[in-house]
């Protein structure tokens, strides 16, 4: 457990934590600053990988130019005061219902009605493998198409 490995773990936790901060923050300015921190940790990753030029380009271009551009847009447009979008009220019950039907079909498909009995001879090497349970696939595709 040498020093670079400890540093790598600390940086990995920092990178994931700042990305989570970007996802979960309600204020746009906080999200932009979390992303700047993320870029800084990734720049130190590049230094660990022996790419100092890429690390400096990352800090200069990403954290120095692109995030400043983002902050300009946020400040000039007043984006931190943007309201949340409307939540469609029928989506959540529909998603829950489809998920339940999908998992119910999946449970009924794992019974012995769909799987071949174990006493059957094994299929030949060039034969097509048995088809999966079609009803479960239909329900799951209906679930996914409603997303």
């Amino acid at each position, binding site marked *: 457990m040498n020093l670079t*490995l400890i540093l*790598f773990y600390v940086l990995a936790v920092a990178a994931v934590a700042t990305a989570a901060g970007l996802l979960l923050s309600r204020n746009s300015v906080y999200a932009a600053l979390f992303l700047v921190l*993320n870029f800084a940790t990734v720049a130190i990753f590049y230094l660990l990988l*022996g*790419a100092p030029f890429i690390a400096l380009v990352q800090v200069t271009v990403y954290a120095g130019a692109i995030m400043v551009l983002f902050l300009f847009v946020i400040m000039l447009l007043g984006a931190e005061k943007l309201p949340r979008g409307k939540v469609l009220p029928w989506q959540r019950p529909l998603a829950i219902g489809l998920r339940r039907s999908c998992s119910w079909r999946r449970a009924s498909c794992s019974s012995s009605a769909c799987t071949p009995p174990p006493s059957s001879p094994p299929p030949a090497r060039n034969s097509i493998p048995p088809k999966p349970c079609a009803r479960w696939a239909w329900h799951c595709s209906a679930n996914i198409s409603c997303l």
Partner: protein
Amino acid sequence: MIGELGGIPLSGFLAVSAILFTMGALGVLIRRNAIIIFMSVELMLNAANLAFVAFARSYNVLSGQLFVFFVMTSRRRRWRLAWP
């Protein structure tokens, strides 16, 4: 050839890259604010850049770092960011 990079396994860097990419994709799908969606796209690009540089170091070629450099400094992406 695929080995450790200063004592850190290649899979460690790839795991961090994958986790960051997934979180960026989640941000694009979940958040409704357009600015934060753009920032999540930048996060995904960063994760891909990290994977590029990790492989470039592991295979000892320069082309990974060159690709990352050109992606970072491309003008087309600046135009796309100036769109909002």
